[in-house]
């Protein structure tokens, strides 16, 4: 029968990334079930221990809430001809950006055969901050900060991007307003009531 001091040894070993042989995880769990003191002291750590012992993976996976997957599928299905890489309509629009973008808010500098530097520009004189978020930086809203490059409120950032891909992005103004690039006509619905601008390189 496991004792309270054994549970402490068990937790000590787990804490330093080892597992003790003084008891099994099952004995540990049974002791917690019968000992209120140890349960309160160590019970909250049990999910972490199970993860370290790969017990979580062998347990039955948690069920998804009812309707979860259906809601996701409905949301992406309601977006019309999604899959912008493969939709001829969107692909055509994206290709147009490459041309149109040159004369508007996006400029390209060739670095080598695979990478180009892309300059993103936004005219936002009232903004206190502007960030660039897109699938190229996992939609980080605070990763790529634009700099105010002109007194009239023009913001800019230059980033290297790989050619041969389609990117979706937003500008994040003052931390909360996610907007499309006004200089780029082609957009996709982002699923949140807004849109993302398309860039094909």
């Amino acid at each position: 029968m496991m004792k309270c001091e054994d549970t402490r040894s068990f937790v000590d070993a787990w804490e330093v990334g080892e597992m003790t042989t003084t008891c099994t995880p099952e004995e540990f769990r049974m002791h917690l079930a019968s000992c209120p003191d140890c349960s309160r002291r160590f019970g909250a750590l049990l999910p972490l221990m199970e993860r370290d012992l790969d017990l979580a993976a062998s347990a039955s996976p948690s069920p998804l809430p009812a309707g979860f997957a259906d809601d996701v599928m409905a949301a992406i299905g309601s977006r019309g001809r999604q899959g912008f890489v493969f939709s001829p309509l969107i692909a055509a629009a994206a290709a147009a950006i490459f041309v149109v973008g040159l004369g508007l808010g996006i400029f390209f500098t060739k670095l080598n055969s695979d990478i180009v530097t892309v300059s993103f520009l936004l005219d936002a004189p009232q903004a206190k901050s502007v960030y660039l978020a897109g699938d190229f930086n996992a939609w980080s809203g605070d990763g790529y900060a634009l700099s105010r490059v002109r007194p009239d409120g023009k913001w800019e950032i230059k980033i290297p991007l790989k050619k041969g891909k389609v990117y979706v992005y937003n500008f994040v103004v003052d931390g909360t307003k996610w907007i499309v690039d006004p200089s780029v006509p082609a957009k996709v619905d982002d699923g949140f009531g807004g849109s993302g601008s398309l860039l094909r390189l």
Partner: protein
Amino acid sequence: MIGDSRTDDDEVVKKVLSGDREAYRFLVDKYGPRVISFCRSRMHSEDDAKDAAQDVFIRAYSSLASFRTGESFAAWLFAIAANHVRTRFRIFSSERRKTEAAGVEVATAPPADPVEDVERSFRADGLRRAVSTLPPDMRWPVEFYYFAELSVAETARVLGLGEEAVKTRLFRARKSLRRALEEKQPKSSSRGMDI
């Protein structure tokens, strides 16, 4: 599970990108519980976590063309999830502060019995509360490794760290969590006496 997980994910992504939208359901079913668990660590309710997780899958679908097959889909997905919950949590906190500043009471669970509250905090929410007190350099590895169930290698990739750095932070986090939880331990294990 049949077959290699990463290969399975790659095959599904290829199907989706080739126009089989329904194939995406496989990824939602497979990773949904982990994404909800991950989001729950930053959200204030199960409903918020579920909504955030659905947003993550929709956003991931929009960005699916940027996923490179051969890499870990889980690491890619949870990088999106991390950025989403960070942004969403910030907006949520801002709205909550505005609401509180306006003198409007924010809806919360009714005050529980003190003893029950202690037990609940140690059992149901105790771990999340303790994790939320960790500094960011320890909190993110815990959330990726323990809640999202990414491997150490995947966690390292998402965070841009080496695997040894992740292990070190997890070790420090385990020590901190244990200390934090034990410091909250009531002096007596008794539920108290009725007077």
